[in-house]
C-alpha cells in the first residue's frame, strides 16, 4: 500500500440467509449509506458457522470478521443461533486469549426488517477497526519474488 492511500479495513461478513442477508439487502434498497468495506458471504444459518471460517478469513488477510444472524428465538431452523452463540463465544474467547484484539471479531443479530441496524453495525465495526490498523497476526505471509 502506498503512503498516500489511507488504510481501509477489510471485513468479511458472514450473514445468515434468512435474516441478516435480507437485512443487508434492505439497507441497500433503502439507500442507507454505510461503509463499503464489508464483503458479505451468505451462509444458510449462523449455526452452520464453523470457527474454521473465522480463522481462515483472518488467515487470508481479513482485518475483521462479522457474523450476523437472526435474533434469538427467530431462527429458521429453530435452534441454529443458540448453537452459534455458544460456538462463537468460545471462538471469540480463544482469539482474545492468544492476544488478538477483541474488536477484530464481532457478532450481531440483525433481522430482515433491520436495514438501518445492519448499516449501524457495519459502520460501528469499521470505526472500531480503523484505529487498530491492518491485521497481521494471523495473516499468512506470502513470499514476494
Amino acid at each position, binding site marked *: 500500500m502506498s503512503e498516500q492511500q489511507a488504510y481501509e479495513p477489510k471485513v468479511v461478513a458472514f450473514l445468515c440467509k434468512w435474516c441478516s442477508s435480507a437485512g443487508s439487502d434492505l439497507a441497500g434498497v433503502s439507500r442507507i449509506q454505510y461503509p463499503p468495506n464489508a464483503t458479505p458471504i451468505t451462509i444458510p444459518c449462523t449455526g452452520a458457522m464453523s470457527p474454521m471460517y473465522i480463522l481462515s478469513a483472518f*488467515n487470508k488477510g481479513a482485518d475483521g470478521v462479522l457474523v450476523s444472524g437472526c435474533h434469538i428465538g427467530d431462527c429458521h431452523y429453530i435452534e441454529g443461533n443458540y448453537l452459534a452463540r455458544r460456538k462463537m*463465544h468460545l471462538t471469540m474467547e480463544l482469539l482474545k486469549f492468544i492476544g488478538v484484539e477483541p474488536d477484530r471479531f464481532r457478532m450481531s443479530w440483525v433481522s430482515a426488517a433491520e436495514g438501518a441496524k445492519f448499516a449501524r453495525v457495519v459502520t460501528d465495526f469499521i470505526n472500531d477497526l480503523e484505529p487498530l490498523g491492518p491485521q497481521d497476526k*494471523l495473516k499468512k505471509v506470502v513470499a514476494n519474488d
Partner: protein
Amino acid sequence: MINIQDIRDTAKDMLAKGEVRAVIGYRRGSRGMPAEPAFITNPEQAEELVWDPTCFHNLSLYLVEDRKFLAHLNKTSDAPIAIIAKGCDARSIVVLLQEHYFKREDVYIIGVSCEGTGVVDERKLAPHLNGFQATKAVFDGDDFVFTTAEGEKRLPAREVMADRCLECRNPFPKENNVVFGEDRTGRELAEPFAALARFEAQGTGERWDFWSHHFDRCIRCFACRSVCPMCYCDECVVDSITFPVTPATTAEEKANRIRWIERSATRSENITYLMTRAMHLAGRCTDCGECERACPVNVPIRLLNNKMEREAREKFGFEPGASVGGPSLVASFLDSDPGDFIR
C-alpha cells in the same frame, strides 16, 4: 494405597476366564523410569503390569486404535477390552462413549484412583536429580521415591507432579467396572486452572508475544494429534494428506479439495492448526495433558485446551466427560448462555 498385585490378579483372572480380549495397562519401559503401555492377552503376562507415578499415558487412545483396526479388518468386537484408567482417562472414555465411538459393553474399565498424588512431570523432576537419570519411581503416601545411580531420592509429590494433576478436580474414575484406590475427590492440591489464571493476568500484548513465540516454534509434527484419544478423525481438516485417495480419485478432485491451511510450519498456519484443534477439543478435552507431554518443542498446548475447558465450565456450566448420557458442549445450549457480546 493401591496394591498392584490386586490389579494383576484381576487382569489375570479375566483373561483366564476369557471375559476380555486383552488388558491395556502399563509395564516397565525400556527407557529407564517411564512406564510404557502394555497390551496383555496372555494371563501369565499380567504379572508385568505396574502402577507408579510414571503411568502418564492416556490409554484410551488404544481403544480408539483398536476400533480402527477392527474396522480395517471388517470385524466386530467379540469380547470387551479391559483398560486401566486414571480419573482423566476414564473421562476420556466417557467422552468417546458419549460420541458413540464404541459401546459401553465393549470396554471394561479398571479404574485406578490417583488418590492424593498424580503423575510425575519429567521436566519438573530433572533439576532435582543432580544430572542423574531416574530408573524407577514409586508412590509412597504423598511422596514419590525415585531411584537413581546415586541412591534413593524422596521428593514431595507436589514439587514434581504435572500441573494438570495438581489442578485436577476429579482424580477418581467415576465411570468404572472395578476400581482400585480410595476416592479423594476434592483434595485441592492447587487451585483449578491456576496455571491458566497466572497466564491470563497478562495484557493482550504480552499474551501475543508469548503465543507468537510458541506458534513460531511449532514444527507441525502432529504429535499432539497422534497422542490424543479425541483426535480420531480419519480425515483431519487441517492436514490435506489425510484426505482419502483411491484409484478412482481424479486429479481434478484432488486439485479442487478445500485446503483450509497449508502444511508448511509457518506462524499463520500453526496458529490456525492449534486454534482449530483447541476448538475441536472444546468440551471434549479431559485435560489428560498428553499433547503437551508429547510435544517435542514444548508448546504449552494445554493452556489452550484449559482455556476452553474453563470457559465451558464458567459460562455454560459444562464439565467434559461427566456422565455417559450427558450432552455435548457445542451441540447443546441453554437459554442462559451469555449473549452480551452480541450487538
